[in-house]
C-alpha cells in the first residue's frame, strides 16, 4: 500500500483496514445509495439528487481512501434523507412586482389633499469635522414628480427643473444652501394634474423602516452624511 511522494496526510493509510479505493466502486456505491433512496421514496427530487450524485462522484475522485470516501457518501445520504425546515418568506415586503402599474418598482401615491412631512434632525452635522460646511442636497425618487411641491423649512422650492432620470424613474435633487437648522423639515404635496408617486425604497435599521425615497445628503471632502426620516401625514390645511 504505497503512497506517492507529496501525498497529503489525509490520503495516507493509517491501518490496513482502510485500503485505497478506486473511484469506480465508490462512485457506484454513491449512485446505489442515492438510487435506493429514490426508489424507496425517501427523496424523489431528481434535481437535488443529481447535485448530490455529482458531489458524491467528485468526492470519490478527490479522496483516495475508503475512510475518507465513506463519511462523504454517508453525508450525501444524510442530506438526501433528512429534510430541514426552511421558512417560506412568502412575498417579501414590499413586493414591487406584485403591484400592477408600478413597472417593477414600488411607488406610493401622494394623494391630493395630503401633506407628507419629514423631520430630519441634523444635530450631528456640525460635528462632522469638515473645515467648510459640506454641500447638502435633498433627494427624492419617484414618478410624475413634476406635479410635486417641495417645501424646505416652509419655503417652497421649485421642483420641475431639477428633475432628472435615474434608472427609469424621476430623480429630484434640491440643493439645501445654508440650511443649518437643528431640525430640517421637508413637506411634500401634490399640485397640478399629475399625482406624484414616491418611490418606496426601504432603508431599514433594526426593526424600523424608513420607507420613502426622501433623504438628505451632505457631502464634504472627507465625509458623507446621510439622513433618513419617517413620513408624517396630514391633510391640507392642517399643516
Amino acid at each position, binding site marked *: 500500500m504505497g503512497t506517492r511522494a*507529496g501525498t497529503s496526510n489525509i490520503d495516507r493509510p493509517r491501518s490496513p483496514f482502510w485500503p485505497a479505493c478506486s*473511484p469506480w466502486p465508490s*462512485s457506484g456505491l454513491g449512485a446505489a445509495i442515492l438510487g435506493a433512496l429514490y426508489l424507496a421514496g*425517501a*427523496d*424523489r*427530487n*431528481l*434535481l*437535488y439528487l443529481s*447535485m448530490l450524485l*455529482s*458531489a458524491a*462522484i*467528485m468526492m470519490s*475522485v*478527490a479522496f483516495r481512501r475508503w475512510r475518507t470516501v465513506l463519511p462523504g457518501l454517508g453525508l450525501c445520504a444524510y*442530506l438526501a434523507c433528512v*429534510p*430541514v425546515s*426552511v*421558512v*417560506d*418568506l412568502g412575498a*417579501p*415586503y414590499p*413586493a*414591487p412586482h406584485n403591484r400592477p402599474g408600478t413597472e417593477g*418598482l414600488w411607488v406610493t401615491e401622494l394623494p391630493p389633499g395630503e401633506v407628507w412631512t419629514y*423631520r*430630519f*434632525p441634523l444635530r*450631528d452635522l456640525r460635528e*462632522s469635522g469638515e473645515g467648510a460646511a459640506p454641500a447638502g442636497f435633498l*433627494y427624492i425618487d419617484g414618478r410624475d414628480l413634476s406635479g410635486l411641491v417641495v417645501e424646505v423649512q416652509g419655503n417652497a422650492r421649485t421642483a420641475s427643473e431639477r428633475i*432628472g432620470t*435615474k*434608472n427609469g424613474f424621476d*430623480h429630484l*435633487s434640491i440643493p439645501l444652501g445654508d440650511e443649518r437648522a437643528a431640525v430640517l423639515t421637508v413637506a411634500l404635496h401634490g399640485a397640478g394634474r399629475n399625482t406624484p408617486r414616491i*418611490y418606496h425604497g*426601504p*432603508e*431599514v*435599521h*433594526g*426593526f*424600523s*423602516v*424608513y420607507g420613502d425615497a426622501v*433623504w438628505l*445628503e451632505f*457631502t464634504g471632502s*472627507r*465625509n*458623507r*452624511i*446621510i439622513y*433618513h*426620516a419617517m413620513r408624517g401625514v396630514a391633510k391640507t390645511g392642517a399643516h
Partner: protein
Amino acid sequence: MIGLLGVMLGVFFFYARSKVDWEILQTKHYWSANTWYYGGYAAQFVSTPGGYRTLVTEGLCNYTNMLALGERAPASDARHSIQGFPGTERLATPFLVYALLHVPGESADAWRAFWQANVLLWIFSVFLAYRVAALFFTDGCSPWFAAILVALYPALTLTFNAIKQQPLGTTYLLLGMYVFEARLATAGPALKVAALTALMFFGQFADGGWCFLAAFIFLRAWWIPGPGKWVTLGSLGGAVGLSWLWLAWLGRMYHLPSVMHSLGFSFGRMLGDSWTWLRAWTTGADVSHLSFLNFPGVTFFSVYWPLVCRGFLSSHGVLLVLAAAGLYLEPRSRMFTFLAVPMLFVGHIGTIMAGWLFYYGYLSFPAGVMVILAASGALGRLAGMRALAPRILALAVAALACWSFTDLKRQAGTYYGEGPDYYQRRIEVHYGNESGHLEY
C-alpha cells in the same frame, strides 16, 4: 504558516466579522444618488431575528430556491420551483446553505447560514489555493504565498455578508483544478469523462464555475505532452456535452430558468455576428451598425475591453509584475501567466453575454487566480534562494501585494466598477430620531 494564520485571523476579525454588506452598500442611493440602482436599494426586505434586512434583488432566489431543493416530491408534484435571474446558474449557493442548515440549531436563522457558508467558502478557497500551488511548485514556500494572497483576495473579503456568493465560481475553478491535476491528469479516458461530467454538471450551478474550469482544462491541455493532450481535450468535450444533456433533461422536467434564455442570447448568433463584423472590418467597410462579441460597432475594443483591463490592472498591479518576473525566475509559473488574459476574457463572458458595459471585480477572480499562482511561484523561487537579499525581497514584495488588498473601500470601488477612489469618504447614516447611527 504563521504568516497565513496571522492573515486569516486578521481577515476574520476585521473583515468577516464586520456587518458591512458591500454589495448592498454599493447599490444604495447614498453611494451614487444620480445614476445607480442595482436592486439593493429599495426593492425588498425581509425579517430576520436581528432586524429587517434589505436584499439585493438577484440574491433573494438564493434563499427561496432552498425551498425547491428541500422538496421531497417528484417534479410534477413540487410546490416550489427554481426561480431567479440567475437562479439555476447560482443554485450551488442554496445547495450549500441548505446543507449547512442540516447542522443542529442552524435552521433557526437561515440568513446567518449564508455568512457561515461565505466563511467556509473563504477557508476552502485558501486551502485549495495551497493544494493547487503545491501541485505545481515543488518549493515549500509557493503554496503558502498562494494561500495568503487568496485569503486576502477582495472577491472573498468583500462578500462575507453577501447572499450572492459571487466568488463561488472561482472557488469551484480551484476545486476543479485540484481534482484535475491531482487525480485526473494521468487517469484513463473513461474516468476522465465520468469525473469531468460530474464536475461540469455541478459547475453549471456554481456561478460560471463549469465555464471557468472547462476553459482552464482546455488551455492547460496544450501543456500536456504527447497523446495525453488529445485524450484530455476529447474527454473534456465529451464531459461538457454529457453534462449539458444531464442539465437539459432536468431543465425540461423542472422548468429551470436560464440566463441565456432570459437575455435572448445565443452563442451561435454572437459568433455569426462577430464573423460578419470581422469580414466587414478587414475590407474597411463601416462596422458601426454591426456588432462584435455582442457589443455594437467598435465598443468592445474602445470601451469594454479597456474597462476590464483597467479594472484588473488596478487591483493586480504588484501581482502582475511578479508574474512577469516569474517568466524568468520560475518556468513552471509561465503557464499561469500566459493563461491570465484568456481567463480574464472567460471570466467576464457573463457581461459580454449581457452586453453590459460594467466591470465586476469578481469576474476577474479566475484571471486573478492565474496571476496569484504565477506570482506565488516567483515569490517561492526568490524565498527559496540561499542569499539573504532575494529572501528579504520576496517577503517585502509579498507584503506589498498583501497590503494592496487590505483597503476594502478602495477594493470595493474597483470591485463594483466605480473606481478605486469612489468609496473613500467616511459615511455616516442617521435614522430619524434614533440616537445610534451607522458608519462606514
